[in-house]
């Protein structure tokens, strides 16, 4: 982590000197989860009538910040001031009452309710008998939609609307509760250029009404178009903030990435051998298209991209969990026909999934049974399970991975995150694969375990395994990979050899920013 501090010392700029008083100020906010410090002493200010762009890599702490501002998490340290008055958000409702509203990536609205009901849910106008005043709801909704220059009929159900129209409904809802602070979490992710233009016109309107807007986006062109101020997050810290007009784009990319990679990841030099695995024109009906690459013995191929770029979907498809619409896999010169994950395991391709809780482990089952699960064919004798063989297998990989557990028969759910990750990796190594696909191998685990996992990945490569490593962490990608493929919106956006690797180039390819 020493690389981080080096850049951080010179990067923070003085906060914007604006005469106006910030509507909302966060001072020294920290949010700590077991093993992870999601936010570390973050301070930001939001001003009326201004858009502040929040920029950062995946996992930099943006979502955590949104959850604190909307009252879902309570920070461990720091204070939130509204109009200069310290406030605590005890619940989501408290945040709404304080005037904070969030419009999420997938807007949190109710498909089966009408537009008007969605707008007024929880604060519907009442008649004098205490029943819901439908006339007022519908006319109120219509008036709000007209303010947003939209003619959507407030009585139609939400599920009949497009995503852009749903955003409008969410914004109308924000207006109806008279929110003063509007958080927009990647609102443009699923919108077309025209819809984005419409949205931006509405954002300009919100600015004129004096709302403070926190705009989260990966896309620099949009950020420069709509925002006045910026905050860059990295590893849970606000590493830079200021006025966008005075800040060139390169500076922001540098802040986002900013660390000296080679110090943190000593790359194990491995002699790279002959091609082992080839993917030819792999396509999926909806998630990715025309992906081709080749993997050599002992090689680590990094797979970089933003969330939603199709990386995990590609890997799941290579592993037979989903079927491609076309394309061919070739392993050691032989074409493969993979119809299920069982086929992939037998062929020697394994996938260590990203969410170890959801995809990786049966938490109530003992460690050794989790480890042996994909290898039962090898540990069983004539169709009967052999606990002794399973234990021997588990012991071998537990020792190799330095797994810390009271016994191999305790449920996996009792282990720490880092040790659970070791069980997942051990489980897949035990199948003795030729190609191993690691999806975010160090996500959500502590620094110490991270280093151990990185060292271990290096060892695997040295033993001749071919590795595909999906990661959203640039330092990890830059430090570990022999080559990097960048994906953007389901397409291969570039292939970089190690000599040509640079954080800036990868981010440019991933964001489509020239």
């Amino acid at each position, binding site marked *: 982590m020493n690389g981080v501090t080096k850049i951080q010392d010179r990067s923070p700029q003085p906060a914007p000197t604006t005469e106006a008083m910030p509507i909302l100020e966060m001072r020294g906010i920290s*949010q700590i*989860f*077991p*093993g*992870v410090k*999601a936010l570390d002493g973050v301070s930001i200010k939001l001003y009326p009538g201004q858009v502040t762009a929040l920029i950062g890599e995946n*996992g930099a702490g943006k*979502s*955590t910040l949104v*959850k604190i501002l909307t009252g879902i998490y309570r920070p461990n340290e720091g204070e939130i001031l509204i109009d200069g008055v310290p406030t605590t958000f005890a619940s989501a409702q408290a945040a709404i009452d304080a005037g904070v509203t969030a419009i999420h990536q997938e807007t949190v609205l109710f498909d089966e309710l009408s537009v008007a009901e969605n707008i007024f849910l929880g604060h519907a106008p009442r008649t004098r008998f205490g029943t819901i005043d439908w006339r007022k709801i519908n006319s109120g909704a219509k008036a709000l939609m007209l303010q947003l220059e939209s003619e959507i009929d407030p009585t139609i159900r939400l599920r009949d609307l497009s995503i852009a129209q749903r955003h409008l409904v969410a914004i109308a809802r924000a207006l109806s509760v008279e929110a003063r602070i509007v958080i927009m979490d990647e609102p443009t992710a699923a919108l077309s250029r025209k819809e984005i233009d419409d949205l931006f016109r509405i954002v300009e309107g919100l600015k004129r009404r004096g709302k403070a807007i926190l705009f989260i986006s990966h896309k620099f062109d949009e950020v420069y178009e709509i925002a006045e101020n910026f905050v860059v997050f990295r590893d849970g810290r606000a590493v830079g903030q200021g006025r966008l007009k005075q800040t060139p784009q390169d500076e922001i990319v540098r802040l986002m990435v900013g660390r000296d990679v080679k110090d943190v990841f000593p790359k194990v030099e491995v002699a790279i051998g002959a091609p082992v695995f080839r993917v030819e024109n792999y396509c999926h009906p909806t998630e990715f298209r025309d992906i081709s690459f080749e993997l050599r013995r002992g090689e680590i191929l990094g797979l970089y991209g933003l969330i939603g770029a199709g990386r995990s979907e590609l890997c799941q498809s290579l*592993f037979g*969990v989903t079927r491609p619409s076309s394309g061919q896999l070739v392993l050691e010169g032989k074409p493969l026909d993979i119809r*299920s*994950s*069982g086929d*992939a*395991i*037998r062929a020697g391709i394994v*996938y260590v*999934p990203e*969410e170890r*809780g*959801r*995809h*990786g*482990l*049966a*938490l*109530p*089952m003992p460690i050794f*049974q989790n480890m042996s*699960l*994909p290898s*039962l064919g090898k540990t*069983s004798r004539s*169709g*009967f*399970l052999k606990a002794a063989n399973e234990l021997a297998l588990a012991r071998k990989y537990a020792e190799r991975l330095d797994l810390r557990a009271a016994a191999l028969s305790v*449920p996996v*759910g*009792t*282990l720490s*995150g880092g040790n*659970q990750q070791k069980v997942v990796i051990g*489980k897949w190594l035990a199948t003795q694969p030729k190609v191993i696909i690691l999806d975010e191998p160090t*996500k*959500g685990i502590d620094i110490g375990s991270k280093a151990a996992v990185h060292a271990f990945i290096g060892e695997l490569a040295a033993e001749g395994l071919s590795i595909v490593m999906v990661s959203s962490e640039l330092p990890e990608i830059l430090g570990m990979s022999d080559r990097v493929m960048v994906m953007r919106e389901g397409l291969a956006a570039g292939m970089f050899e190690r000599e040509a690797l640079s954080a800036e180039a990868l981010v440019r390819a991933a964001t489509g920013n020239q």
Partner: protein
Amino acid sequence: MNRLLKNREILLTIIIALMIAGFSTRAPGFAEPGNLANIFNDTSILIILALGQMTVILTKSIDLSVAANLAFTGMAVAMTNAAYPDLPLALLIVMAIGIGAFLGAINGYLVWALRIPPIVVTLGTLTIYRGMAFVLSGGGWVNAHQMGPTFLNIPRMPVLGLPILSWIAILIVLGAWFVLNRLPFGRAAYASGGNPTAAIYAGIDIGWTKFLAFVVSGALAGLSGYLWVSRYAVAYVDIAAGFELDTVAACVIGGISIAGGIGSVAGAVLGALFLGVIKNALPVIGISPFAQMAISGIVIVLAVVFNARAERKAGRIILRDRGAREVSA
């Protein structure tokens, strides 16, 4: 001692022993070996059905059609026996298991291929199977005098001090332990309930595993159909009505998690015995028949509350992990 109390099976054994001791102060002779053997024999069918139910519940499913399956199969073998008294008993038993397995396979197929939630599927087939029993019998009864002596007497015949019915239950218990702990199918059942996604990633076909679990449950229900009809010496449409709930209750009391993936054969057996002891004791200690159902219901609820608390303790770390996952999302 504390560790022993944390083991659910041992705890349940102690509770059952205490219950028996308590009841014997009110009803002398309750704790005598002869009476205990009777209770076990009385509970045999519940034990067999609970083991089938457990296999299904492990895969995160539920089979509400077991009692209806039992009624249909029981009716079918009783009518066959009445119409063709010369057919050997072994053939009738094979027939009962076969019909039961087939009805279970229908459940399993609907769950597997059409992806209908198991509770919906088996609620539907519960009614269908009972209705089929009605159609088959025309609403009529098969009484003791229509059944052959072998058909009626074999399960009651004592061998080494226990009736054959009890020995069948013991064999099924051993068989269930073997299948769930020594065969890959058993491991697949635990894994597909414990974490379906992880199971798929490990190359396990959870649809097929669920299908097999329903076939096992159906086959055991079919076998129980014969045992029930022979034991009570009568077959009619409404036999064992509502008994599916007893099988679920036995599993829940025995610590089989309704969410799937957790549970042991010993737990299911002890859960069934717990219910068996209560059902046998309440009449003996002079509790009014009107109050008996309510009391056993209360005991079941207490057992479930107790289990839920135990599960929550075990789940703490899992919950923490969920919290951490949300951060990264």
